[in-house]
């Protein structure tokens, strides 16, 4: 129920005003309209996390890599390079 999926903003239409701002968001090839009222700072090219047609937040790319950095910090693993994991 609380499933929310990250997708990339392809374009933004704000002609309906700030609260009905709609983005075309790409989820691995499937494009859907998403309400961006709650992420007024989101820009084209950025990723948002989407739940029932609304973006809940933008995804922080710098923080996203930290799950793996945390592992590296713990034991100096070098096989999980950032480049390899950017997918």
């Amino acid at each position: 129920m609380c499933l929310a999926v990250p997708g990339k903003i392809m374009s933004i239409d704000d002609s309906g005003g700030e609260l009905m701002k709609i983005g075309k968001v790409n989820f691995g090839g499937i494009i859907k309209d998403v309400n961006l009222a709650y992420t007024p700072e989101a820009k084209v090219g950025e990723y948002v996390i989407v739940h029932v047609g609304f973006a809940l937040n933008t995804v922080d790319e710098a923080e996203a890599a930290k799950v793996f950095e945390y592992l590296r910090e713990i034991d100096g693993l070098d096989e999980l390079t950032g480049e390899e994991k950017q997918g």
Partner: protein
Amino acid sequence: MKFIDEYRDKDASMRYSELIHNITTKSWNIMEVCGGQTHAIVKYGIDELLPKSIRLIHGPGCPVCVTSLELIDKSIEIASREDVIFCSFGDMLRVPGSKKDLLQVKAEGGDVRIMYSPLDALKIAKDNPLKEVVFFAVGFETTAPANAMAVYQAKEQGIKNFLILVSHVLVPPAIEAILSSKNNLVQGFLAAGHVCAVMGYNEYFPLAEKYKVPIVVTGFEPVDILQGIYMCVKQLEEGRHEVENQYVRVVSREGNLTAQNIVSTVFKIGTRKWRGIGEIPDSGLVLQDDYIEYDASLKFGLADLVVEEPKECISGQILQGIKKPNECEAFGKICTPERPLGATMVSSEGACAAYYRYRKI
């Protein structure tokens, strides 16, 4: 897909599993609050990657499962009316009411429609001015901004035939109900990442302090969950009880203030009955007085309907982590996803359905 695939990485998962094994010296009970996390844990076998002494207890974090029988019966009553188009997320259609479910209402000719977003229901209201269009607003804090926006827009746009049947529940009061219960087994929590994406995690500091439990805000992919468990076990082993955030890429401490603002404009906190658990004070959202004309329960004179829960289903104990699905005598026998006795078997995120689907016993 970016931000999903890398968090399903097998090497990183195995490494976190190893780290958890390395630091664990005692038995610990950790509850993942959210049904989405339960689903991932069972699907990816995350519990099997843990030391035997770490027990994951599946929490009440599935709004479909905890919606009271009373509200399901109200939805059925409303959806059966000829003047109504009843809109709902798909999960709710097969939740058994006292006599039938919404799918049966649809089969009998009721206009019941499955929605992806509450804004779709608002559009249907605009397009069908002679009908009352009712949206079944279930959900945790994650879904509240979407449902609040639909009502807010209905008022802004002067749409009078849009109503919502509100079944919103809140996570922190449920955590507190579990912690304050004399049966409580839970020593640490993985808080639900998407609830916190909206609300932040300030609310959890007093809970961690009062009950001396670590609370780790956690994401939904295997690597996220394993890292969350690692952080939680580390705190338990070190005797700490802090609030930590594993899901930093999506969650900030303050949460989404724009969303919180619309939610508190439209909704206020009220008492809510949880299926299988009972009434928890201040554990739900109800419409603010300024938006009360959008309340379907009032509009159709159902505000006073009271329905008692049946006895045969132990979903209340499942939801509180007192029993596991396979410890129920009905599990997989008289209770299956095709013929569910209770809501934890109905919802795809319910603990019973997850066990049935991925772990046939």
